């Protein structure tokens, strides 16, 4: 049932309008002799049509329309102004303020019923359009979220493919992504950047797909020649990821290229130092080393935590940016909790939670 709010200071007029509307089966008149009370009612209810007299002592029809339109969520509700005035200015002002139609007094019953029916039809259509727009918007949001999730999953699986060659589980890429997000937060980076680093850091070693097995999986120390080949994974990773329009891949390229640079300038591939190294690379460096030292590798046993932390402390200002080390120490309990959780829960669920943004 559509609610037609009728506003006229004359109770006789209201009764006449109500009577005229009686034969419309889908409209129910709600009368008000006070425009102020009518507006108050409209604040709390959702009418489907307004019929308002122009000439009222308390508040004229134009002011009523202006105030009604100012109420939030009431823009698409049609308003018919009833006036005895033939003055063009009144009609023009009413239209400018948001009136949709006019009826001239004395109101003809057939004309009123026809206009009310037409306006209610318009109201119904605009409601349908609004519902459709909301539905479409929700569908687009869902589709976009799905694409973003697929993009993240693809990137994650790519990162895991590279990692898989020298690390059975692939947990390392999840962990260092989560570590990087925490350290970025401790550094006060914006939440968008924290999220970007969380998702991009797992791509740090993507260039290892091009590193030969006999070098990557070698248990003993590398020769100078092998070491030069090993170092190439940074540039190879950058080459794989560069020139993408995706901010995520752009950040991934930056991290792949710079995560083996050292704060003191003794890293590779370009021996950059200090602030020359992108912050993302400095964050990835500490997260990568921390997790690698605590993990078993073909060439080493896992280090105890105390020894690992001593190493990181010793390398502050040498391998690592002291500011990043401070942030790292600030979130250390969280990093250790992540290490335990990811190791304990190793399953598809953890992975999905990672690229589906469910783990912060």
């Amino acid at each position, binding site marked *: 049932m559509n609610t037609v709010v009728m506003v006229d*200071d*004359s*109770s*006789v*007029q209201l*009764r*006449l309008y109500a*009577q*005229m509307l*009686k*034969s419309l089966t889908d409209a129910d008149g709600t009368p008000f002799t006070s425009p102020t009370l009518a507006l108050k009612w409209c604040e709390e209810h959702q009418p489907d049509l307004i019929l308002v007299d122009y*000439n009222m*002592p308390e508040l004229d029809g134009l002011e009523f329309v202006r105030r009604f339109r100012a109420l939030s969520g009431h823009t698409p509700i049609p308003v018919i102004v009833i006036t*005895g005035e033939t003055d063009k200015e009144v009609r023009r002002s009413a239209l400018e303020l948001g009136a949709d139609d006019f009826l001239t*007094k*004395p*109101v003809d*019953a057939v004309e009123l019923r026809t206009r009310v029916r037409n306006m209610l039809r318009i109201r119904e259509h605009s409601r349908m359009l609004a519902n459709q727009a909301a539905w479409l918007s929700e569908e687009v949001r869902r589709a976009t979220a799905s694409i973003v999730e697929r993009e993240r999953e693809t990137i994650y699986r790519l990162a895991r493919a590279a990692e898989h060659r020298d690390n059975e589980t692939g947990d390392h890429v999840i962990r260092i992504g989560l570590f990087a997000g925490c350290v970025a937060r401790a550094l006060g980076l914006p939440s968008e950047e924290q999220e970007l680093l969380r998702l991009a850091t797992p791509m740090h070693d993507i260039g290892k797909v091009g590193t030969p097995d006999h070098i990557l999986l070698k248990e003993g120390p590398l020769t100078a020649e092998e070491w030069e080949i090993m170092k190439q994974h940074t540039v190879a990773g950058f080459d794989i990821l560069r020139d993408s329009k995706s901010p995520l891949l752009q950040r991934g390229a930056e991290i792949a290229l710079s995560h083996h640079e050292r704060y003191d300038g003794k890293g590779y591939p370009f021996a950059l130092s200090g602030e020359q190294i992108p912050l993302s690379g400095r964050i990835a460096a500490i997260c990568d080393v921390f997790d690698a030292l605590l993990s078993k590798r073909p060439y080493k046993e896992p280090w105890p935590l105390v020894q690992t932390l001593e190493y990181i402390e010793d390398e502050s200002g040498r391998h690592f940016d002291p500011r990043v080390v401070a942030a790292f120490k600030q979130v250390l309990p969280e990093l250790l909790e992540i290490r335990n959780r990811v190791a304990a829960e190793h399953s598809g669920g953890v992975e999905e939670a990672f690229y589906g943004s469910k783990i912060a």
Partner: protein
Amino acid sequence: MEAKSLDLSVLVEIFNGDSAGIPDLLEDVSQTVDRIEASLIETCKRQDWPGAGKALHELKGMCASSGCVEVAQLCAQTEAILTAERYRQVPDCLESLRSACGRLRSAIREACADQYQAR
């Protein structure tokens, strides 16, 4: 041709054959006429012409909508006189209007009696 005090066909059309509600509405019309007439006399006595104009406008609107043709026409004429600022003619107009209101009240009483009898 003299205008009718009360053209019931207007209300019959609005009530769409269901005339049971007409007497009740006419009682409301009668009370409103009393109220506005009193206000009109008072404003004219004070020579409050804008106030008189508003009262006339309200009476005209209601009467025109409910088939009270004579009063509606006299209201329109008096409104025109006020707009033209021919205030000397107002007392005569007011007298005509009061007489018409009296006739309307009688017509309403009559119509209501008929309606009640018809029930």
